[in-house]
């Protein structure tokens, strides 16, 4: 038992072994491997349709891999539903923002605490002391988190009324409110202008330095990747074609071919 907990403690935050995903006859991802230790910031890039979001969908439990294994903090996630995977310490954002638009910003954060409510339906109906305590605590923590990110003035707004950049930020904050060990950011800079991108880079770096979290992100903006990621993995048509530092990846011939095509056409 002791050895087991020790093993889990030392286990990498994320470990993916030989993961393959097939949709019917299409192999979206083949033989994908990665190990992310704690407090790392990694990137995943590739041309459109390379299978990047598929990787994130697999890690967050939205799909079950056809082959291979995913372990989060040492726990295999095979057969777990997404909310159970989230409970293991994974949180993510989406390529196209998926906030709950008819719910206030505060409620968006509150609902994200659903996994650790700690009260039952009947306690909610009867308003037991325990329930009231938990609700107060959830609200307080949500406000605190919002104020850390300077969003508390929007607490009662609907997310649709926020500017696009703030919606992106709110989605990241919502993911962080899960207190994840692994934060997956799926194209956080998509649709942002250059000023907002700089803002985002600062935000992600600040999150990385402040919270005890491993960040893995998909991004098309190379400047974001260069600034932030220690290690980048490049995939194309589901195959890993290169991995290494940003500088190495940028000059890798296979990557240039994948993005720009062969020069002897």
């Amino acid at each position, binding site marked *: 038992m002791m050895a087991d907990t020790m093993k889990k403690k030392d286990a990498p935050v994320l470990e993916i072994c030989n993961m393959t995903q097939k949709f019917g006859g299409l192999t979206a991802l083949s033989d994908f491997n990665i190990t992310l230790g704690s407090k790392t910031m990694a990137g995943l890039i590739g041309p459109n349709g390379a299978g990047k979001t598929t990787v994130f969908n697999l890690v967050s439990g939205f799909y079950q891999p056809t082959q291979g294994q995913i372990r989060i903090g040492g726990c295999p996630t095979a057969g777990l539903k997404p909310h159970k995977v989230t409970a293991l310490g994974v949180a993510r954002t989406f390529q196209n923002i998926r906030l709950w638009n008819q719910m206030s910003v505060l409620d968006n954060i509150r*609902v994200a605490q659903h996994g650790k409510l700690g009260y039952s339906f009947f306690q909610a109906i009867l308003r037991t002391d325990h329930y009231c305590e938990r609700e107060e605590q959830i609200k307080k923590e949500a406000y605190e988190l919002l104020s850390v990110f300077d969003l508390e003035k929007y607490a009662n707004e609907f997310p649709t009324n926020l500017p696009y950049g703030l919606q992106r930020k709110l989605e990241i904050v919502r993911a962080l409110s899960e207190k994840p060990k692994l934060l997956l950011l799926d194209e956080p800079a998509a649709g942002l202008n250059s000023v907002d991108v700089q803002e985002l880079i600062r935000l992600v770096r600040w999150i990385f330095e402040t919270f005890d979290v491993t960040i893995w992100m998909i991004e098309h903006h190379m400047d974001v990747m260069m600034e932030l990621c220690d290690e980048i993995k490049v995939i194309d048509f589901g195959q890993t074609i290169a991995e290494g530092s940003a500088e190495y990846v940028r000059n890798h011939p296979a990557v240039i071919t994948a993005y720009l095509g062969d020069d002897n056409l």
Partner: protein
Amino acid sequence: MRKTPVKSILQRYSVHFILVVLGAGITYLAYQEAIGLYVLSVLMFMGVNIILSTSLNLVNGNMGEFSCGHAGFMCVGAYVASILGVLLFAKDKIFGVPLLSPDLAVYCFPFIIIAGGIAAAFAGLLVALPSYKTRGDYLAIITIAANYIIISLIENLGAIGGSRGFMGMKKVVNAMNDVVDLPWMVIWVFIFTVFTVWILRRYNSSTFGKGVSAICQDEVAAEIMSVDTNKVKTITFMLSSGLAGIAGGLFAYIIGYVNPGSFNILKSTEVMVMVYLGGMASLSGAVMSAIFFTILLELLRPLQIIKWVIIPLVLIIVMQFRPEGIMGNRELSDIFPKLKRFYRFK
């Protein structure tokens, strides 16, 4: 400084106070026979309709599913409560002598109604379990199927009257009146109506209940953001159908007679009309439209069958000019924020 506690007490208990006065007032008037039996029955149907529309609003409004089988669960509640009541407290040609003394009926009545509600909640699993994998139009079809399953099952159960229906509930009500002479049905309809709105209000304002709206707005995001969607769906469907079962039980005891035909798809549609008229996901809208709809039905009664031309026409007009319903998805307190100063109904 001295004013504050009085004000906060006033704020905290204003709704309770109004409800007690209202309930006691109606009961007193009914006891004195100051209001006629007809008006009284309209008031009681109003209560039943409020329970039905608010509980359906939980599924159709808050969760964004399209349930068209609400009357089916009402039917389960009506039959279970009726059979239990007659079996225990009334002499009947099917069940013979009552198992318990009819004098006890007055104490056990709420439990009988709640038993009907619990049975209906379990019948709700008929929809809740398929909802894990299905949603939208396909789930709507399943709810219609569930309604038909329940109706045909009861139609074919000869032991409880089949399609001829089941009666004897009046004897139970009379047994209650023999012990304490009060308008018991009025009292219980009132209490259960308040109980329903109160439960739903608490459910909707809890973080747990907000998960229901999260599923409505983006189920994928809800599942990823740690909402156990299957659990939330099960509880929501069971709560909704359980409350419909309570409405059914009360309905059966008000009329004194149930038959499967009165819980068909038309009844479900009627409840749906109330929800859409009031506004999706608005609890106060559902209450108001249930009251409005009951009165409208009674006012149009002289038109007889033409009534069912007028009412759908009203729906068409509302959908044309105010597709979000009377209240939209807002509550009364969102429209009149000052009301929040006066009441806290939690």
